[in-house]
């Protein structure tokens, strides 16, 4: 049975249609990539799924429950966690305390929350950062803290919005390994967006492509990137011809 079922979801801001009739499924334990150029509507779709925006039309079912009308915090409690593309490192919570906030979703006890937070920091190989302020850490570490905080809510599905943005190549590889472990060792399904393709390609079982708010392709990663529509969306018409010529030759 599908873990997440998105049916003809549309989201309009005033006159602007950021998502238009998007449908897809995500199975238990699957890694699904959501790609598309900047402004395609990926973040908006995440916000709709996670309950931060009400959808204009459509239906979202998570784990057998219709979550379309639910608020973000209720969605989170059902086991759907997310990270944010724009992640401000401010405030007066230390790293470990940040992760504890996530853990507090499932327990009222500080002792337990702290224990779980430490375990997650350990799992993400940043155990030594616990007593720092978030703003004192480099970006790659901050992203891991955000990941740890989301994971501490013990989700079934994790939505990752551009976790690789702003990272250098070595850090991206580290992140790929980490996400693979999260998926394999913890059995958490992942839905990840990226406008840099390399990470999505490495991890995803299937890929969905958005452009201008619409779904233009879906399938195996290798097949999808050969789709002329996708190439056009990413690189413009010019490259479609070139790619066509290349495959003819």
């Amino acid at each position, binding site marked *: 049975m599908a873990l997440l079922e998105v049916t003809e979801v549309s989201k309009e801001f005033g006159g602007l249609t950021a998502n238009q009739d998007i449908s897809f499924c995500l199975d238990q334990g699957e890694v699904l990539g959501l790609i598309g150029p900047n402004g395609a509507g990926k973040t908006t779709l995440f916000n709709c799924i996670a309950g*931060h925006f009400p959808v204009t039309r459509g239906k979202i079912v998570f784990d057998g429950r219709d979550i379309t009308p639910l*608020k*973000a*915090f209720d969605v989170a409690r059902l086991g759907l966690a997310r990270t*944010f593309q724009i992640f401000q490192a*401010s405030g007066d*919570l230390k790293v470990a305390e940040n992760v504890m*906030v996530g853990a*507090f979703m499932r327990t009222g006890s500080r002792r337990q929350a702290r224990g779980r937070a430490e375990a997650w920091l350990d799992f993400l190989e940043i155990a030594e950062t616990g007593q720092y302020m978030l703003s004192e850490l480099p970006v790659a570490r901050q992203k891991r803290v955000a990941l740890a*905080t989301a994971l501490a809510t013990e989700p079934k599905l994790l939505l990752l919005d551009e976790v690789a943005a702003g990272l250098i190549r070595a850090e991206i590889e580290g992140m790929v390994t980490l996400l693979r472990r999260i998926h394999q060792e913890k059995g958490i399904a992942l839905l990840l967006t990226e406008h840099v393709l390399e990470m999505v390609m490495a991890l995803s079982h299937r890929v969905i492509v958005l452009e201008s708010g619409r779904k233009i392709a879906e399938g195996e990663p290798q097949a999808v990137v050969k789709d002329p529509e996708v190439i056009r969306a990413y690189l413009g018409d010019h490259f479609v011809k070139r790619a066509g010529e290349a495959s003819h030759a």
Partner: protein
Amino acid sequence: MEAVRNAFDFSDFPRLDLWVAGGVLAFLLVFPALPHSSFAMTIMIQFLMFSLYGMGWNTIGGYAGQVDLGKAQYNGIGAYTTAVMMVRWDVPFWVSMPVGMALAVGWSFIIGYPLFRLKGHYFAIATIATSLILKDVFEVWDFVGAAKGMEIPIRKNLPDFLYLQFKQDYYYYYILLALFLVGLLYLNAFRHSRLGFQLRAIKDNEDVARSLGIDAHWCKIKAYAVATAFVAVVGSFHACYNFNIEPEDVMSLDLSILIAMMALLGGAGSLWGPIIGAAILVPLKSYLGDWLGASAGLVGLNLVIYGGIIMLIAAVQPRGVWGMVEAALARRRGDHGAA
């Protein structure tokens, strides 16, 4: 059980803090035994009262970051509940105080539900409006004495612990000190509690907080209720301590802002902040008022200076005195690290 353990868990503070806190506590305990003027005693009582106000405010204003400028209305509810129950039905303080607290908290839920749909400035101004509305009602409500207020009659046999009437101020002082210590321990537990963490996450970023399963609206209402309970208790005490209460005195905007000022000046969102703020502001206001107003005939100059200090702090270090101390300590640590 864990809450009790949390209340006594100060282990995340540096040792220096704890020594200072211990010293202050010792001083507070023996103060009445030291030679002092009655003016000094009045100031110490005010200091404890405003510490408690500020501690309460700190839950919603400091930890949750919602600048509430309408706390005086709950002070009024507490004070009037106690006064009305004593004057009309001869009910002791220890009964009327919890009743006042319950009424205030009940009212805070009614007000808080719509109030917390607002954010930032809009929220702050709306809190002022709600408090002024209630004050205007009390000013014409005959049952509570309208604008003249209420006066609690003096009892025959003093000291009266049931009705909180004493000849000597140190009785009031110790009762307040007990409330102060209970409040401090409660807040220490609060700070470590799930709600405490969730509020700080909300202050940080509400969207992120929501994605972590936090119902921000409801959490703020709960914190608002906690703050209200503190203020209402002090209000009840104030009624007994002053005998005489009137709306202009117990529900004024100045009081609301002063309550917020304690924590803001001392350092909002830290356990010691409101206490530091009260320790600075209360004597400053009283002594300045005494010297410049009564002695030199310069009525108003004290408040000019007081306003100037507030402006200066706001412009230089919005995290308050505690923020300055922490910044200085961090710099010292940094220097040591480099050396």
